[in-house]
């Protein structure tokens, strides 16, 4: 067990999901390595959030399987944590109690440490309603971290934040990911956010993976020419300006 890597390995095989007549995901195959940071981009309604909810066990697939560390995902898993689009803090619990929610009956220290990680250790005794949007989302991040997750799923958690707070949050997420080595899947419609954070960007269009790109930039990432190159490349594919063959494409620059 000691040899086991902390970040989960995720294998998705032949995964399809259908709501009534609408095919949201069509035979998705995807492997995510231990500790990898994946970004899934796509237009709204392309099925990227559904994929994330399937991985979290919040929905059941119509067909196909998801394996987390060689075990089939059947329902909600306690090693997997989800960061929602909204902060979803319980307004009737103080900040610290909100962080403690997933470490129920456990050490208060863990929760305090998690709050410290996101820089809010002095706000533990306040009600969530007095915090700003960015602070609330940081508390939500602390809540996810307090469970010491092996897989962290981000469903556009930064979508509602202003541009500056957003960049701060991206840096914070990157820092915590580097420190804690969990596997991450970030769903976003913001291509530049995907390039800034991910090892690999996956583009989903109409329920299918149409692009799978390694981002070979060093960390911390600068928004330089190479960055723009990746961003442009993915964005063009999103806008369907170019048709390139499907498959892993390692761009050498």
């Amino acid at each position, binding site marked *: 067990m000691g040899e086991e890597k902390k970040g989960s390995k995720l294998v998705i095989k032949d995964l399809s999901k259908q709501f009534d007549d609408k095919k949201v995901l069509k035979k998705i195959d995807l492997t995510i390595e231990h500790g990898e940071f994946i970004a899934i981009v796509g237009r709204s309604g392309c099925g990227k959030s559904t994929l994330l909810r399937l991985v979290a066990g919040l929905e059941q697939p119509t067909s196909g399987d998801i394996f987390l560390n060689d075990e089939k995902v059947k329902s909600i898993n306690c090693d997997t*944590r989800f960061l*929602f689009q*909204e902060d979803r803090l319980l307004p*009737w619990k103080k900040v610290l109690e909100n962080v403690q*929610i*997933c470490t*129920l009956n456990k050490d208060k220290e863990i929760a305090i440490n998690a709050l410290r990680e996101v820089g809010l250790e002095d706000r533990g005794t306040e009600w969530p*309603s007095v915090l700003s949007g960015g602070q609330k989302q940081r508390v939500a991040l602390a*809540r996810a971290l307090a469970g010491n997750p092996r897989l962290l799923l981000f469903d556009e958690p930064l979508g509602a934040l202003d541009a500056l707070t957003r960049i701060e949050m991206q840096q914070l997420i990157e820092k915590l990911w580097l420190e804690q080595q969990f596997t991450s899947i970030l769903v976003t419609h913001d291509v530049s956010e995907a390039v800034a954070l991910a090892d690999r960007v996956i583009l989903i269009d109409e329920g299918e993976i149409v692009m799978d790109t390694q981002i070979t930039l060093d960390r911390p990432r600068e928004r330089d020419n190479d960055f723009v190159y990746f961003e442009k490349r993915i964005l063009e594919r999103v806008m369907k300006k170019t048709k390139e063959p499907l498959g892993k494409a390692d761009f050498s620059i």
Partner: protein
Amino acid sequence: MKTRRFWIDKFIPLIIPILIILAWQVLTSYGIIPSTIFPQPIKVVIAFLDLYKSGDLMRYIGVSSKRAISGFIVGGGIGLILGLVNGISTTFEKLLDSTIQMIRNIPHLALIPLVILWFGIGEEAKLVLISLGVFFPLYLNTYHGIRSIDPRLIEMGKVYGLKNISLFWNVIIPGSLPSILVGVRYALGIMWLTLIVAETVAADSGIGYLAMNAREFMQMDVIVLSIIIYALLGKLSDSIAKLLERRCLQWHPNFKKTTK
């Protein structure tokens, strides 16, 4: 300056009641309003002191409060439990809700003749009537409170490992509490109303009995005194409910200013 503002704020709500009492005293003592129609405030105070000294007043207040509270606990408790059950389980809701809604549409005071025939004029009749009156506001508000909890919070709870009982205590109860407390306040109003009616119709003790008995002997001062006591008891219970709201809902932005 701050303390002056404080005293002004405290004093403003009292201005109108004080003026009314002064006008009342003046109008009655000069005979503009005959004392057979309306007694002097002083007479009411004297009646209060007399009844207080004889011990009747406190005994009657005790009897009435006991009726009110026991009816509230029985009816409110059943309402709360059924509201919770029907709010959480759609199966139970299908089974029970339409029946409850049917009964709700009967004014509970219309059942007085039936209740008297069934239970006589004793304590049971009053308990049944008050329970019935208190049941519906608590049932409806509890049910509504649970149904209006943000389903995204429940989903969050599940993702973060809350199950059944912990989900109930950490998400469902606090989430429906604002609505439940509205139900409590509303039920308290109905509780006093039903008590007054029940005691006026048939009783051998309590404040309603005091008033009806005084009517027999044309004791206007005692009648007015009973009405005032009802008002005070109603106000007292509402203040307690308000206090409860402030204590339990500190997190709620609407209640935050008042707690400071």
